[in-house]
C-alpha cells in the first residue's frame, strides 16, 4: 500500500496537518503568526548550511529554525516592535538563505521543492520523520499544555501559580522548530505558517474551550490535507498550495456559519 505515492502523500499530509494545527492554536492565541513564518524562513538558511557542510538536511534545518526562534525570543522588547523585528528577520533569513544556496554552485538543488514542498515525492523515510517528529511535538505540547495555557493568558498569573512562563515558552519554541523542520517536505517553507494558523483560526468559531479548539484544528488540518491532495489530483494543481486553499475554504465556511448563527440568536 505504501508503494503508492498518493497514499504516502496522504499519510504525510494528514500527519503534518494534525500536528501543526494544535501548535498553531498557540501561534494564534499568542499572536505570533509572523513568528512561525520567521522560523520557517530560517529553514532555508539551514538548507544552505547543510549543503555547504555536506551534512544531513534535517538537523541543520532544526538548528537554524531553533536559532531563529531563540533570537526572536531574546530580542523581543528591546527597542523594536515585534512585527517590525520579525518582518526584518523573517525576510532576511529567506533572502540570505536563497542567496547562500545559489552560491553553492556545485550543489544541484531544487529550491522550489523547499519553498513549496514536494509532497508527492515523500518517501517511506520521510514518513517516519514526519510521524515520529509529529508524535514528539504532540507529546511535548500535551505535556506542557496547562503551563502553556496559563502562560499565554498572563505570565504573572503563571508565576503566582508556580509555573515558569519562560520554560513553557522554550518548549513551545522547540516544538515550533520541530514542526517546521518536518513540514518542509509537505507544504514548503512559504506555506508552513499557513498550516499553523489557518486550521486553528477555522476551528475557533466551533470551540468553547482551548482543548476543543486544538482538537478541532487537528481534525481540520488533517481533513484539509486529504481534500487538498484530492483536488490536486483531480485538477492537476500543485499539492502544497491546494492543501492550504482547502484549509482556507474551511475557514471561510466555519466563520460564515458562526456569523449567521450569531445574527439569528443574539448572544446575551
Amino acid at each position, binding site marked *: 500500500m505504501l508503494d503508492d505515492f498518493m497514499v504516502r502523500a496522504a499519510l504525510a499530509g494528514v500527519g503534518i496537518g494534525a500536528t501543526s494545527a494544535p501548535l498553531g492554536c498557540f501561534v494564534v492565541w499568542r499572536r505570533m503568526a509572523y513568528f512561525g513564518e520567521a522560523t520557517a524562513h530560517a529553514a532555508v538558511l539551514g538548507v544552505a548550511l547543510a549543503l555547504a557542510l555536506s551534512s544531513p538536511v534535517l538537523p541543520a534545518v532544526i538548528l537554524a529554525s531553533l536559532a531563529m526562534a531563540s533570537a526572536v525570543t531574546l530580542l523581543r522588547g528591546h527597542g523594536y516592535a515585534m512585527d517590525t523585528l520579525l518582518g526584518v528577520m523573517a525576510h532576511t533569513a529567506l533572502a540570505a538563505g536563497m542567496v547562500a544556496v545559489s552560491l553553492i554552485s556545485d550543489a544541484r538543488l531544487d529550491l522550489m521543492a523547499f519553498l513549496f514542498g514536494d509532497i508527492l515525492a515523500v518517501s517511506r523515510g520521510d514518513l517516519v520523520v514526519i510521524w515520529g517528529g509529529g508524535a514528539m511535538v504532540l507529546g511535548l505540547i500535551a505535556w506542557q499544555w496547562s503551563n502553556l495555557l*496559563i502562560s499565554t493568558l498572563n505570565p504573572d498569573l503563571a508565576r503566582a501559580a508556580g509555573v515558569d512562563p519562560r520554560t513553557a515558552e522554550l518548549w513551545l519554541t522547540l516544538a515550533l522548530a520541530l514542526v517546521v523542520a518536518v513540514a518542509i517536505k509537505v507544504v514548503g517553507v512559504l506555506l508552513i505558517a499557513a498550516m499553523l494558523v489557518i486550521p486553528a483560526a477555522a476551528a475557533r468559531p466551533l470551540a468553547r474551550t482551548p482543548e476543543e479548539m486544538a482538537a478541532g484544528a487537528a481534525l481540520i488540518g488533517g481533513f484539509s490535507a486529504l481534500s487538498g491532495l484530492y483536488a490536486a489530483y483531480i485538477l492537476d494543481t500543485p499539492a502544497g498550495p491546494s492543501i492550504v486553499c482547502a484549509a482556507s475554504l474551511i475557514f471561510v465556511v466555519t466563520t460564515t456559519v458562526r456569523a449567521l448563527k450569531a445574527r439569528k440568536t443574539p448572544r446575551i
Partner: protein
Amino acid sequence: MTSPVITARDLSIRLDGREVLRNISMTVEPAEIVTIVGPNGSGKSTFLRALIGAVPLASGRVERAAGLRIGYVPQKLALDAALPMTVRRFLSLPRRISDDLVTEAMSRAGVPGLENRQMTDLSGGQFQRVLLARAILERPHLLLLDEATQGLDQPGAAAFYQRIEEVRRDLGCAVVMVSHDLHVVMAASDRVLCLNGHICCEGAPEVVADAPEYRALFGTGTKGTLALYRHQHSHRHDADCEHDHGHGAN
C-alpha cells in the same frame, strides 16, 4: 501562621537600568490588609510582581513563610478573543480543581453560577470577580491584588473591596493590594504604604492621610473623601474612629 506571611528585606529593583524600587522593607502579618498607594510609575505593580517572584531583584530578598500559598489578581488580563475559555476551564488552570472548590470560590467572590460562560462575554465587574474567585480557589494565605477594580465604577469598586474584607474574614488570609481608588481602599485597610520609588510613609490610614509626604503626593483633597466614605460605610471600625477626621484639615 503567626509569623509574618511575607517579608521584603531591603529590596531594590532595576528595570532596563533604571532603579524602580529602592530599599523597600515591609512585613505582612497574617490576616492583615495592607494597601499600597502611590503615583503612576511609583513601582507599586513592580513591587507586587516582585513578591510573586516575577521580577529579578537587584538587591535584598523576599522571605516567604514555609508552604505559603499566594492568590494573585493581575493588573491587566487582556483575554484574546481568539482563545475560547469558559469560566470553569479558566479556574482549573494550571491545576485541575474540584467542582466543590469552584462552586465555593465563585459564591465567595459573588459570581455564583457563571461557570459555563465564556470569559470574553463577562462584564467588567464579573470578570474581576472571576479573577478574585480564581485567586482564592486554593485558600491562599496571602492575596495580592493589583488595581483589581480598574474599570469598575465607584459603587462597583466599593462593593468589590467589601467582598475582599469578607474573604479575609472567612479565609483569614492576609491581603496586599495596590489601588488608585485612594479613599475607598484606605477605608478598608489596616495599614497603608505610600510608595514612590521608596516607602514615603506608612501606618494606619488616618496617619498616612495626615502625613506631609502623602499630602505632597496626593494633596489634601482625598482626606475629606475618606471621611465622607467612612461616615457612609463604617462597617467595621469603632465608633470613636468616626470623630477622628475633622473636615478642618482642608
